[in-house]
């Protein structure tokens, strides 16, 4: 005979709907580090704010430096729409401009990683906070925070992988990093607008306390104290590291990353860049021994394509010329000292380039005055940026060359023999190597 289970009493049934004491990470008791609190989070946030603004700014500049609105060949994100609202003609002065902006972008990004990780660590209990939303506004805020965290890690992650040439992401780096950065920016602006006042208050109150608080600031101090309590665990374990010590460790991590990366931007310091992908040592010795973005072998440029049979096809106002390297060497030669700077954040100090001015080549095919934009195509059979467009201001700069020599020697195959473009302040990928065709007045 089966015993009929006793029906739960009415009150027990209701009890199930009453929120139980939360457990695991959903309970405030789970989080016990005495370091957590607004006093740790605020200084980290106040470092990240200018840092990330600088990263976003230099990132937007890097996109502008490609002159993406000039030609589809230069634009890796052609469906950008309004996101290209700010684009402008990239200047050729100062010649270290892209070296500076992109060096800052990559090196600063790497330096900020410990600060970002520490910031995320300091607020992790908030991820598990219940109820999920107190109001629609609060729900939207939490969605925005997920976009902030996901977007931040996504943008930093793709950047760090890309500079290491670990092209493992699902799509073009440019697409992911550019649109990912905009998704992040949308959430970042909201986060700053909502949290900056609180962070400033916390840091200011701390200073007031240290200076010996005056009565007038007492309420401010109390408010900061109250906000701090929101991130502080209710039952902290005994501290084994001071807040200042923790901040020092984060700063130490940033300094270590900076010290082992920044050398990738200076030939004299390159040996100190122990982990930067273009740091440590140079690929060779002698005049052609400086850093190479992509070797000839990797992109399929063989000596056959660049040997005695090689000719430069020069197109202009209805004219077409085919020039051998010997013929190019008979044209007026000019020397110029210019750096090479790559989107991946490394650069070299000035190299001495020697070759024919783009202005003179334009004149040969009928553009004697005010030459137009220029389309350059490489003999390179594979890889991105086999072709690139240069804007008229770049063509008209007398320092812009079709280089044949570097540092007193003919270009090596890896540096673009028989001839390469070098334009002041242009990103490395626009300085086309192994040039096969140049068309003045065309953009594709």
């Amino acid at each position, binding site marked *: 005979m089966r015993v009929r289970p006793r029906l739960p009493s009415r009150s027990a049934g209701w009890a199930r709907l009453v929120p139980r004491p939360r457990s695991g990470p959903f309970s405030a008791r789970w989080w016990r580090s005495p370091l957590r609190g607004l006093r740790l989070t605020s200084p980290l946030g106040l470092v990240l704010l200018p840092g990330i603004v600088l990263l976003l700014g230099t990132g937007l500049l890097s996109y502008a430096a490609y002159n993406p609105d000039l030609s589809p060949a230069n634009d890796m994100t052609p469906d950008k*729409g309004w996101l290209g609202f700010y684009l402008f003609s990239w200047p050729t002065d100062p010649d270290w401009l892209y070296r500076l902006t992109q060096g800052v972008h990559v090196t600063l990004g790497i330096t900020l990683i410990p600060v970002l990780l520490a910031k995320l660590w300091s607020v992790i209990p908030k991820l598990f906070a219940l109820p999920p939303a107190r*109001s629609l506004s609060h729900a939207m*805020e939490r969605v925005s925070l997920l976009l902030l965290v996901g977007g931040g890690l996504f943008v930093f992650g793709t950047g760090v992988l890309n500079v290491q040439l*670990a092209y493992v992401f699902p799509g073009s780096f440019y697409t992911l990093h550019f*649109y990912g950065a905009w998704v992040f920016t*949308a959430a970042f602006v909201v986060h700053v607008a909502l949290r900056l006042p609180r962070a400033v208050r916390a840091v200011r109150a701390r200073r007031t306390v240290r200076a010996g608080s005056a009565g007038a600031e007492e309420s401010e101090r109390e408010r900061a104290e109250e906000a701090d309590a929101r991130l502080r665990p209710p039952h902290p374990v005994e501290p084994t590291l001071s807040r200042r010590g923790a901040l020092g460790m984060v700063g*130490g*991590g940033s300094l270590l990353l900076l010290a082992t990366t920044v050398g990738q931007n200076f030939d004299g310091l390159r040996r100190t860049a122990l*982990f930067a*992908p273009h740091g440590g040592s140079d690929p060779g010795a002698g005049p052609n021994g400086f850093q190479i973005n992509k070797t000839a072998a990797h992109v399929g440029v063989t000596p056959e394509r660049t040997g005695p049979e090689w000719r430069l096809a020069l197109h202009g106002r209805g004219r077409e010329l085919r020039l051998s390297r010997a013929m190019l060497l008979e044209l007026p030669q000019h020397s110029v000292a210019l750096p090479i700077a790559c989107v991946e954040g490394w650069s070299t100090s000035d190299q001495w380039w020697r070759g024919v001015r783009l202005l003179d080549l334009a004149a040969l095919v009928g553009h004697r005055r005010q030459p137009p934009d220029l389309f350059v195509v490489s003999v390179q059979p594979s890889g991105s940026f086999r072709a690139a467009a240069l804007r008229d201001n770049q063509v008209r700069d007398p320092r812009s060359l079709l280089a044949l020599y570097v540092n007193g020697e003919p270009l090596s195959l890896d540096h673009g023999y028989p001839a390469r473009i070098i334009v002041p302040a242009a990103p490395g990928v626009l300085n086309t190597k192994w040039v096969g065709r140049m068309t003045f007045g065309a953009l594709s």
Partner: protein
Amino acid sequence: MRRHDGRRGGWRNGRRDRWFGHGPLRPTLLLTSFVLTGYAGVRLLAGDWLWVTAWFVGAALVHDLVLLPLYALADRALRAAVPAGRHRRTVLNCVRVPAVLSGLLLLVWFPLITRQVAAYEAITGLSAEVYLGRWLLVTAVLFAGSGGWLAYRLSTDRRREVDAPSAE
């Protein structure tokens, strides 16, 4: 209606709070931000949307549910391993600091250090073998430096202990 005026007002406020929480400014800001998110997001997902989403969400999940618990657990294990005593804090931090710095380098540069970048040498003309050695070397220097500092701290402390009775 006469009787419940106050209550109705309270109820209305309750409903408004449920929707807006902090007044209309905040949801307006958030909605504007979501417009931009949508505009960029559509373009971000235009290609392989499933994998891009997986990367976007995965980045947060791996960090929040794997990486962060991992280093929290490592620290808990360390705290359990170091016995209570006067020098506990010093010992803990002399392990923590070099471990954090070394772990940070590994986290940022793991594709190069663990030689995951197959084409690195072909692309740059540089050797990919150097990174593991450099990381081990930096790690060794960090731990050696930290160990030296710990030994110094312990010895000065012991000397103070020896000196203390005579000073009394």
